[in-house]
């Protein structure tokens, strides 16, 4: 289970670092935090290619949910820009 532990620790570290960095930069938009966290999650999950097929299937479903959330945030931002608000 060491590979699982490594994966969870790397996700926690990446999420923590991104949130801390954005907080230091004074970012106030929750969408930006969410989008960057989801991106980090997807990249790290993709890097762990050696997971067994069952783990990959399970993580793909979580990734799909997060990607849907990511798309919602992006579409809302695009609509906001296009409508000029």
């Amino acid at each position: 289970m060491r590979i699982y532990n490594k994966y969870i620790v790397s996700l926690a570290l990446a999420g923590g670092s991104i949130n801390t960095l954005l907080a230091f930069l004074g970012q106030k938009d929750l969408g930006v935090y969410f989008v960057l966290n989801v991106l980090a999650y997807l990249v790290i999950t993709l890097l762990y290619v050696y997971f067994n097929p069952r783990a990959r299937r399970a993580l793909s479903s979580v990734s799909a949910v997060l990607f849907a959330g990511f798309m919602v945030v992006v579409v809302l931002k695009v609509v906001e820009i296009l409508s000029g608000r």
Partner: protein
Amino acid sequence: MITCPNCGQKTSGDHCQWCNYPILRGRPVERQEAGSVRKASRAKKQARNEAGQSGKTGDAERQTVKNARIVAQKKTKQGNMVSNPYRILGLGLCLAGTIFVPVSYFIINSVPLTAAAISVITLGLTCIALANTRPYISPETCQLMLKTGMENTAALLEELGLKNKAIYLPSTMRDGHPQALVPLREDEDIQWVKEKIPGRLIVRFGLNPDDMAIAVTTAGSINIDMLETKPGPTSAEIEAAVTYILTGVLDIANSASVKLTDARIDVEISGSRWHYEDVWYYRCLGSPIASIVAAISSEALQKPIRIKEESYSKGKSKIVLEVLS
């Protein structure tokens, strides 16, 4: 006269006069089997008669067994729920995150803290997803099964006094199932038989009548089925397959590097958690890690492979494989 099961020629005596294959007489065993079948059917009939006589008692017993099974299943389910650390961690993180999101957003009014709480929920969901992928059988049980198999094979090798290094064969040379051959005598220049080697325990693998071997299934033979695609004959593809099996599926090493040069393959396994020991089984068939590497390499190159050297130093296992032609 009897037909040899190995070469199909008519022969007599304890060994085939053409291929030297040992001839096993089947009659006594068949007779014993027939006897045991008769006994079993008689016992069944008796049990059925007894059950008919005491129908009510049988119903009550059946109900008790059913109830006990349901209770045991419930207990196992509860045990799994509690004993899986990833599930506990995941549920804890999800709960904490769900409580913390509205508190940090509406009461504390902090966007970074809300983002942190969302990250915690994501991490919790990941842990729950991973919890469901843990093996059904505990690692201790798997180790027990493996040790039993290894000790049985070791006993067979020791009894026969076989010390020769095993040759790992690709599935195409066997009956679609990769196995290792332990030759009865050492031979550097093997003239391989053209047809597939039969799926038996004692097999003839060379054109020479003395080229007899014991065919055994090793840890590596079984692991081939776990690969999603068969690796190609390059060192990069072999390395990817070995890393996938050792790191992702079995979790017994951190990484692997493979160098392929002509008839030699150098493999370095770092963070290996199963080392070489100087015991009869390992001397003959190699350690389980070496066996897995040899079986994968043999399948990738479609050639027989022998484990030439195996050593462990400074947290790294070094395995040298010899590609036979």
